[in-house]
């Protein structure tokens, strides 16, 4: 039952408009940043190009990107009371679970590719084309290390996979929180902006208290602070998981009265 419903949802999700949005997210954003940094920065190694490509703009847009992938589609269904009419052909909980899974999976995939594609490009493709002039390294050159650089000794591809998966996992979490809130709250703007608010408010709080290693921005995109132990990235993540659980419990309690 769930499998067929998931298949249906997937088919419904791949509309032309959605595909354009997703391609725009995956290709356009890194490309813009890449051309901004091309002439102005000095690079020694391809990994620096990758790290610089996905800093600044993408971290700031992250909470907006995760809600753009699939949630507008779901919100339209809820706003137009489409869900009520699906109950005759599919059980309510199956429908919602399939929606939640599709949302989490698609968002995670798009964000995964958003990180992974620039990596493949800047490590494996760009050096062959030679768009960027690398400065030759001497003995004094220090390549800055960031959190997750701990994984680099195991190979570039391991680093890329694990780091992209980490960002994708966060994306899935943020978007699921917005999804659950859409079910619980009537005001869609509040629900959509909840991940955005959480992200920026906690960046602010950790910033002013001088603990940026626990900020959402620096745990997902750790390229603006020095290298931290890997466990630090789990703190805001676990906090968010707790929030998700609380919203879920709230939803379970409220479920009888809704829809």
């Amino acid at each position: 039952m769930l499998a067929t419903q998931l298949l249906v949802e997937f088919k419904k999700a791949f509309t032309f408009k959605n595909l354009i949005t997703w391609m725009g997210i995956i290709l356009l954003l890194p490309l813009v940043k890449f051309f901004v940094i091309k002439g102005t920065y000095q690079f020694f190694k391809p990994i620096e190009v990758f790290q610089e490509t996905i800093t600044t703009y993408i971290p700031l847009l992250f909470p907006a990107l995760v809600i753009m992938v699939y949630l507008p589609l779901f919100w339209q269904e809820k706003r137009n009371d489409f869900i009520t009419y699906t109950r005759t052909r599919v059980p309510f909980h199956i429908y919602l679970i399939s929606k939640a899974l599709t949302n989490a999976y698609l968002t995670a995939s798009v964000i995964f590719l958003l990180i992974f594609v620039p990596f493949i490009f800047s490590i494996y493709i760009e050096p062959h084309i030679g768009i960027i002039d690398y400065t030759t390294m001497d003995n004094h050159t220090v390549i800055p290390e960031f959190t997750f650089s701990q994984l680099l000794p195991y190979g570039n591809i391991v680093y890329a996979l694990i780091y992209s998966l980490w960002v994708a996992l966060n994306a899935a979490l943020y978007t699921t929180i917005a999804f659950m809130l859409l079910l619980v709250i009537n005001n869609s703007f509040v629900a959509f902006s909840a991940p955005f608010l959480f992200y920026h408010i906690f960046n602010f709080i950790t910033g002013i208290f001088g603990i940026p290693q626990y900020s959402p921005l620096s745990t997902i995109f750790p390229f603006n602070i020095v290298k931290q132990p890997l466990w630090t990235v789990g703190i805001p993540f676990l906090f968010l998981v707790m929030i998700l659980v609380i919203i879920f419990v709230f939803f379970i309690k409220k479920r009888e009265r809704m829809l």
Partner: protein
Amino acid sequence: MKSIFRKHHIEKSFSYIWLIIGIVIFFYGLFLKKNIVSSAQHLGLTFNNWDITLRLMNDMYLIIYFITPLTLFISAKVILESFNQQILIRLGSYKNWIYYSLFRFWTVFFPLLFVWVLLSVFIIIGFPQSWEWSSLSAIDGYGNPLFQLAENFRFPLIVLLEQILLIILAISFMHIVLSAIYALTKKSMFLIVINISVFLGGIISFKMLPPKLSALFPSTYLSIAKIFNVYGSVNLLFIFFLIIVLASILMLINTGKIKKNINKDSILRNLPLVIYLVLCLTGLIVTSYSYSNLSVWDICLVFLGGVSADNFSYVSFFSYSIVYFGFIYLIQLFFSKEIDQIGYYKIIRYRSLYKWFWSWMKVLIFKIILFLSLLIVLTLVTVVIVTGKFNFQITLIPTTLFEILYHYFINGFLQISFYVLILFIVTWVSKESIHGVVLLSIFMVLMFPGINFTGLIPVGLNSFVYLFNSSPFFLTNILLIMNLLVCSIIYYLFKKSLKI
């Protein structure tokens, strides 16, 4: 109306208590007297009537273990017994009920305060009398709580008067907060738990925590000596208290009429505003602490500094985002109701899009001006309270006070109204609430270094850091042009719109 202010059985049930409290304070006073005499003889110093009076009023043991629990008990009893439907209906609103319960509270509490002050004054019998500080109260240590007071005040009588005023303000404030909590939750258990934790917190902070943290517990505010211990001064705190009491009274005006269910609705409605205020205050307090060696205006410039293409730091970027975009977010919440939910009905009523637009735009313009004024006042007051300085020099940015104020108010107003107008266009054109979030993100990205080189993109132009290399009048021109442009777009959209 008048009859409910008649003598109530609560007062009757308390009438015997002030005898007991009188006896307790009297014997405690005798004990303190003995202490003073013995330590004065031991040190070979003189003592006088003010030693015993002020010590009895400021003694932390008496306050924490006796006065505080008594006050909390009376407060809770008054709240629980005076809250019932008949009284609520007669009073008409929760706000009135809170005033009523404050009145009730003071009719009970006033005799106790009176007994306390009276005994403190009359227990001087047998002590040498004077209007000056004694040499005993001027020494540091030996369990003398009056040292800092004797250093800062010329006459002890002023201390006594200020202390009485302080007690009245602090206790009124505490009772208003407690009754507001009860009116909102209507859970007696909750009220009792709060009271107990305030009492225990007072004991713990007195015994174990560093003095800075005891500022969090109300029992500190009953003793002027303790406040000196914690804050190092007291006059500012008076202003602070007055502001808080006034603000809480003003806030209560909005608690709504009795028929409305204020339980969840009003809390949820005010939640964004409360979170916003808490965030701004936290940012302000932390910034003032970490830059406490700077002057007042300099801390303001740091906190509201913002970023430009040349000056960028994550902390000031997020401060700017929270303060200004937080305000824009609140306006967006207003839009989502005004345009998405009731927009059509209101447009039909106003019959013209322009009239409808102006009907809420004038409110928003007023709110923006109010926001800017309150923000600067709040910032200055908080910085003065936290740093305790009155140094108003401007050293960080080479400019004059006039330019700073001009930039803050005029450019700030134009910048915020530009945000609001753009936001309106987005909300009007697309009915998707998701685009509001995307718009805020785009604003934030546009403030990043490397984008707004020329300063022509009108985002974040009210940052103080722009004063480093451009004149505020030039920025005003840009913002004016952009605002006019956006207004003409709105005019065009309305003209084209067939929505009516």
